[in-house]
């Protein structure tokens, strides 16, 4: 069988599989509608898929003709976006068609990459694993689909007894996780996006949803067009597009969010406006024992009160720069029981060296004031990747976790995993593996100096571009003999270009998939077009390597009954050779992996419904519980009448409470200074982030002409006063320097955002302007999430040359 036969065969089997899998829903055209006849006559078929980009979880309708995506429409039946999209979503289909898609496995020989066969590639990976099993690590992503992440998770922890698996989501929401776990005993937001319509006041903490979560933002501000009142309060470190819509703008000195939050807590107590009833029934107080730790020890209200006493409005003003009157304004909003207050946050509080602390305090202001658990009234943490929640957090592709909110350190949890996976006792390793920063530090350190990780397999992410302080964590590895980097990707990203072995991947609707958004909504789609060339599904790649090891006699790839750990049977009970890509779509592998994974989800009441339910729905929010034969989703967790696990008569019940009494924890979390603050040598704060048009490292969106033309190049935002003082004009090239690196970049004054004096902002999408050569790898000691939002920098003018600007 040559390549063409093979492609034809796989196309046929894929088409057959998708038709079979769709069953009753295949009939989505109306034969009586002449307009449809026209469209169908020209060969366009439409099907649903969640958008490929952020964590909002919008659904799109994908128009396909002749095995290619030709159009996109907002999905009107999707509760998240109701037919509307943002500019990235409208152009998501174009992300498949960049001119430099990777289509063949390639091995680095000298300075070039030479094409090799898939079989050779799988053999090389198996060799690396067998050569040094403990030195192998898997670096994944919040863009892994749920089945992809689950396959990698089972391969590593169930197959290789190796916990060196971590996702890039460590860099974006680890602090949210530790915030939820230490407050409620279990991860993920209890509230949901319905709050955006019900809230009277929305507080936006260090976040710019007008650009980062545009659909959620439009759900809020479009209420004004309907005549509804909504008060938007932007609490940030620079003016953004969001500020343009805000009623109040509170500008704080970076890191002092800790002080503002403590200031609110102080006033609620000092003015005796906290919710006595809610606190009495649902709140316990907690503090860290000696240093930063996840679970801490119990404390009492008086100790708590004493701990926040110093944060008077005047003291908070001194630390944060926010006027004392505005701190009082915030506290009095929380004092008003009639208000419905939603707090939104994303990277600002998460990418923070006290990320866990800020997250705890955000929950604390809502818990202490009783603004918790009513529609429109509660804390809502947002995520930036399509499945940061679904895969990284729920499947638990983190170095310490197991699926369904379980952890490797707990023997009962390991036993539960071994039982579901049908593995011999003791297969799962009880010692957490290396988290992201640690994994890459060890990979970029010679073995002789303790750098014991020598092979990393990267899927669906671009660490050479997105890790903080890349010249410390990534670049050195490329010069150390014996370090081997494997990258599965769709485009030659900075990471792929630096890889020893490149594997071409299928993306988005070129494969089946499932993801989970930031309101606990699990979503599903089917493969609609074939991937180009020899590009293949990431989950297949993992399973094929597992099979290669199995065939070589690796005991870890066998379960208790000596069966392959990814064994899939057909309807007749015969094993389907899914490791052979020609047969991968003979069955729906996603469905098999998901149904197995689903068994993990009941342990922590994160129940998922059967696969078929997600085929019908535009996502369902877990826990999805069967009630009288109907799979019912949950809008508000821990709330009686909404969450079926809450006992009648309790109103609110935190049934995973770490104090074992149904209470949530309000933490003592004092303000501490940032590890690197501006000084005489480096007088500016440097903040990094995203822009509306580009998603993450731009490897997809920079290849979409409409998006690239609108935002072709990264820039540094400079305050006009600073610019005048430095003699910098709009468009001048300046040199940014930190203690870690330097970079030349064009200045944009009064541009998209406006930082205050003494502050800079650089978006990170442009691989020609790698701002992560400048950022700090200091991280939250509990969540291990680095702080990309603040470090000290200086601006050096580059003498202007004739023609240096367009």
């Amino acid at each position, binding site marked *: 069988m040559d390549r063409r036969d093979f492609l034809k065969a796989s196309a046929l089997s894929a088409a057959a599989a998708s038709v079979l899998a769709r069953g009753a829903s295949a009939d989505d055209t109306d034969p009586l*509608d002449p*307009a449809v006849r026209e469209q169908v006559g020209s060969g366009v078929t439409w099907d649903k898929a969640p958008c490929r980009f952020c964590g909002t979880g919008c659904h799109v309708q994908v128009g396909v003709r002749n095995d290619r995506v030709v159009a996109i429409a907002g999905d009107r039946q999707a509760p998240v976006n109701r037919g509307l999209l943002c*500019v990235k979503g409208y152009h998501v289909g174009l992300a498949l068609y960049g001119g430099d898609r990777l289509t063949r496995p390639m091995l680095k020989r000298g300075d070039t990459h030479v094409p090799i066969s898939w079989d050779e590639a799988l053999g090389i990976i198996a060799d690396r694993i067998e050569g040094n099993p403990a030195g192998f690590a898997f670096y994944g992503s919040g863009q892994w689909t749920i089945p992809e992440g689950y396959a990698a998770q089972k391969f590593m922890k169930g197959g290789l007894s190796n916990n060196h698996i971590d996702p890039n989501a460590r860099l974006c929401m680890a602090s949210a996780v530790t915030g939820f776990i230490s407050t409620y005993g279990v991860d993920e937001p209890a509230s949901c996006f319905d709050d955006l319509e019900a809230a009277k006041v929305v507080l936006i903490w260090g976040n710019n949803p007008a650009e980062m979560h545009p659909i959620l933002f439009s759900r809020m501000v479009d209420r004004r*067009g309907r005549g509804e009142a909504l008060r938007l309060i932007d609490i940030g470190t620079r003016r953004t597009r969001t500020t*343009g819509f805000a009623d109040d703008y509170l500008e704080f000195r970076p890191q002092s969010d800790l002080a503002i939050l403590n200031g609110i807590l102080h006033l609620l107590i000092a003015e005796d406006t906290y919710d006595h009833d809610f606190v009495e029934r649902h709140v316990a107080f907690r503090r860290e024992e000696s240093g930063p730790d996840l679970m801490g020890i119990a404390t009492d209200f008086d100790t708590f009160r004493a701990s926040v006493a110093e944060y008077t409005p005047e003291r908070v003003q001194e630390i944060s720069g926010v006027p004392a009157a505005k701190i009082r304004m915030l506290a009095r909003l929380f004092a008003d029981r009639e208000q419905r207050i939603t707090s939104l946050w994303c990277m600002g509080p998460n990418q923070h060296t006290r990320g866990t602390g800020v997250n705890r305090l955000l929950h604390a202001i809502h818990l202490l004031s009783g603004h918790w658990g009513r529609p429109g009234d509660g804390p809502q943490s947002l995520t930036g990747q399509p499945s940061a929640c679904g895969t990284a957090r729920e499947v638990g592709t983190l170095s310490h976790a197991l699926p369904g909110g379980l952890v490797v350190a707990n023997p009962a949890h390991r036993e539960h995993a071994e039982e579901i996976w049908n593995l011999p006792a003791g297969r799962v390793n009880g010692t957490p593996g290396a988290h992201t920063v640690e994994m890459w530090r060890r990979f970029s350190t010679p073995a002789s100096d303790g750098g014991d990780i020598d092979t990393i397999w990267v899927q669906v992410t671009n660490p050479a571009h997105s890790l903080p302080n890349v010249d410390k964590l990534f670049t050195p590895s490329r010069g150390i003999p014996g370090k081997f980097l494997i990258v599965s990707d769709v485009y030659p990203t900075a990471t792929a270009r630096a890889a020893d072995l490149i594997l071409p991947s299928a993306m988005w609707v070129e494969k089946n998939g499932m993801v989970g958004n930031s309101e606990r909504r699990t979503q599903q789609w089917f493969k609609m077009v074939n991937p180009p060339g020899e590009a293949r599904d990431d989950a297949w790649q993992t399973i094929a390597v597992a099979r290669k090891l199995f065939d070589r006699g690796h005991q870890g790839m066998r379960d208790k009954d000596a069966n392959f750990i990814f064994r899939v049977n057909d309807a007749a009970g015969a094993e389907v050779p899914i490791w052979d890509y020609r047969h991968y779509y003979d069955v729906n592998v996603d469905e098999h992996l998901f149904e197995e994974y689903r068994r993990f989800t009941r342990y922590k009441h994160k129940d998922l419904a059967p696969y078929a339910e997600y085929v019908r729905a535009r996502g369902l929010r877990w826990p999805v519980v069967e009630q009288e034969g109907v799979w019912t989703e949950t809008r508000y967790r821990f709330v009686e009448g909404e969450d079926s696990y809450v006992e009648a008569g309790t109103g609110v019940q935190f049934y995973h409470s770490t104090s074992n009494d149904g209470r949530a924890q309000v933490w003592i979390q004092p303000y501490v200074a940032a590890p690197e603050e501006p000084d005489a040598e480096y007088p500016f704060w440097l903040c990094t982030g995203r822009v509306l048009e580009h998603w993450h490292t731009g490897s997809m969106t920079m*290849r979409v002409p409409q998006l690239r033309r*609108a935002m072709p190049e990264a820039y540094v935002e400079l305050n006009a006063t600073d610019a005048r003082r430095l003699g910098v004009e709009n468009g001048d090239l300046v040199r940014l320097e930190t203690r870690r690196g330097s970079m030349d970049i064009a200045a944009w004054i*009064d*541009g998209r955002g406006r930082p205050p004096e003494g502050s800079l902002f650089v978006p990170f999408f442009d691989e020609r302007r790698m701002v992560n050569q400048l950022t700090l790898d200091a991280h939250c000691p509990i969540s291990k999430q680095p702080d990309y939002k603040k470090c000290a920098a200086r601006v050096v003018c580059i003498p202007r040359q004739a023609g240096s600007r367009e």
Partner: protein
Amino acid sequence: MRRAAPVLLAGVAVVAAIGFFTGTARPAELRGYLPVADDDGALRTAPTQRDMEAARYAERRAGQLAALEGMAAIENADAPRDPAAYAATIAQRQGTRAYDGAPPTVPHAVDQHGAPACLACHAEGLTVDGRVAPMMSHARFESCLQCHTTSSSGPPRTAGLAPSMSEVSSFVGLRDPEHGTRAWPGAPPTMPHRSFMREQCQSCHGARARGLLPGHPWRESCSQCHAPSGTLDQQPRGTLAPLQGLRVEGR
């Protein structure tokens, strides 16, 4: 209080008197602009604030109009559909859309920062100096730049900065549908595109539109005759059983 009032009145009168005499005492020539000596020693009249504003505005206006080259309005709304104008309109539409149904890109500069003032021109539609600002085709949303991007303003571009990746896209978008279907010759054609987000037919087919003008521009209620597509509009499929036909006994 009773005693304070006359004191206050007296004070006001004194201030008013001083103001009056100061005002009339000012020499009249100070009201105009003083001549300024330039480098060559000749005296010139400085431009007025109004002149300066007008000059700046004319420059900006010329730039904006040049950016809107493709948006020329039709000369005569009553003329029959011109095939050349139709082709030009379709080409112009495709230039600003990745595929039929994509939100058009904005062909002029916008304020990058604040809430945009798009509605000032696009709420009702506008013709300025022969260029059309089309009426919004959809209901009012607040965050316009969420969907509509522009390449006419944005960050500064660094001269000579080479692309680091392929800028070629092999995406081929769905083209604008040319016409709907007719049940019989002379029947009103159905809408060949979705009507969701295109509720305002006038946006593309109205008197300010070019090339896509209907043969009967005086008609106001389009959907009275032109049927939309339930499927293209993603109307949910019901679960109702099909209607039973008439049963006639003895057949």
